[in-house]
Structures are given as structure tokens and as C-alpha cells.
């Protein structure tokens, strides 16, 4: 009986460890936009195995309002050691911008960042950024 209890405890421990690998969504804090700003969401897989992602740009924490002008995150698994990006060339003025990433796999192996960039004459400059957690 005691042995059975120990085995059950072990199974529960290992089971909960597996559950931690189920899909999770990470999201950035809100970043304020302004006039002439662009947005970017970078996701990096620091593990060795590919992970599947669904990266989305949000406006005021709501999906569907900011379409991506470019993304290489959502159509194929992201290989270990690689990064992908979702870019928005012109963000709406005076809203908040956020990035979310639904991750199939271990989110511990993901590092991700959301950026708001000023569009300047010479190019882009990041003016606000936050990690996705």
C-alpha cells in the first residue's frame, strides 16, 4: 500500500512536469504608440527542438485590428536557436501596442520582445520595448 502511494506520488510528479510543456501564451505589457511609429515582435527559440508559434499584434490588448506587414513566425515551426519576427510598418497613433505568442512546447525555451520604433528620416529607432512573459 505504501509502495503504491509512493508510485502514485511519483506518477503525479512526473505528470505535472509534463503538463508544464503544454501550450502557453505569453504577452507583452502595453507599449504606447505615437505618430510615425512601427511595431515589431521578436520570438527566439533558445532550445534545440522546433516549436510552433502563433504570434499576434494587439491594439489595446485586442487582436484583429493591427495586421502584420511581414511575419515569419506562424507558418512553420521555429527551429532551435532561431528567431522570427512580426513587423507592423505603421502603427495606429495613440493606442497601445502589444505582442502575444501562443507557444506549442516549452515556453521556458522562448525569449520574446515587443518593440515600438520611431520612424525617422534615416531609419528606425526603438523608443519602447518590453519582454513577453
Amino acid at each position, binding site marked *: 500500500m*505504501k*509502495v503504491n502511494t*509512493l*508510485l502514485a506520488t*511519483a506518477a503525479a*510528479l512526473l505528470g505535472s*512536469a509534463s503538463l508544464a510543456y503544454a501550450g502557453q501564451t505569453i504577452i507583452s505589457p502595453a507599449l504606447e504608440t505615437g505618430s510615425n511609429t512601427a511595431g*515589431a515582435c*521578436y*520570438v*527566439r527559440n*533558445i532550445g534545440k527542438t522546433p516549436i510552433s508559434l502563433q504570434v499576434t499584434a494587439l491594439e489595446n490588448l485586442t487582436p484583429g485590428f493591427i495586421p502584420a506587414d511581414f511575419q515569419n513566425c506562424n507558418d512553420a515551426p521555429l*527551429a*532551435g*536557436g*532561431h*528567431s*522570427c*519576427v512580426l513587423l507592423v510598418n505603421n502603427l495606429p497613433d495613440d493606442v497601445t501596442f502589444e505582442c502575444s505568442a501562443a507557444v506549442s512546447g516549452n515556453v521556458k525555451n522562448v*525569449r*520574446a*520582445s515587443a*518593440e515600438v*520604433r520611431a520612424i*525617422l528620416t*534615416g*531609419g*528606425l*529607432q*526603438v523608443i519602447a*520595448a518590453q*519582454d*513577453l512573459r
Partner: protein
Amino acid sequence: MRSSLIVSAIGCLLGLAGSAHAAQLASATIYGAFSQHTAQCAIANVGTTPIFVTVNIVDESGNVVPTSEHCGTVQPGLLCEVFASSISTSSAFACTATTKGNTGKLRGSFNLLDANLSTLRTVELR
């Protein structure tokens, strides 16, 4: 006795799971500005024993960027800095610090600097 054996076996299993891989601290992939010129990764040992660390700066595709060095043994209370100069002004970069031991006593930051070595962007390795 039998219970002790099972408990020991579970302990070994969990122990192995924790020690089978090298540990790493890693930054997010970040972009600074069109004026970005240098990437700098700084790893500090806040513990009391030396720690051997390998530090790499990588591009978006995971390719290791040529750097001044890759660190090695970092003494307690000291830090190691790795630089990559003349980086692309249109790409994002990241930093990874790998050690065979525990990363609990390591602290890392990754910075993108302009040509005047002014900081454009900083992110923590975790």
C-alpha cells in the same frame, strides 16, 4: 527498505533530469536603431567560486557573430564582456551564456550601442 529504494530511484530520476543539460542564460532578440554599431554582452559572476561560461552573440538566424572573445572562467565578483563591432544596422541580435553548472550566480545583460558607444537598448539575460 523497498520504499527507500523507490524513493532513491525517484530522486535519481529527478536529479538526472536537472543535470543532463548545460544550463544557459539567454536574452530576447532585440533591435536598437539604424545607428546601432556594436553589440555587447556582459556576464557577471555574483557567486563565491569561479564559473566557466561560454558567451555567444547571435543574429536572427542563430548564426554566431564574430566577437572579441567568448569569456571562459569568470572569477567571483568579476564580469566578462563580449563585443561584436560593425553589426548590421537592420538586423536584430541576441546573446546566450552557457555553463555546465548552475546559472543561479550569473547575471547577464545584452546591450546594443551606437558608434559613440552610447546605449540604444538593453535587455536582461534570464
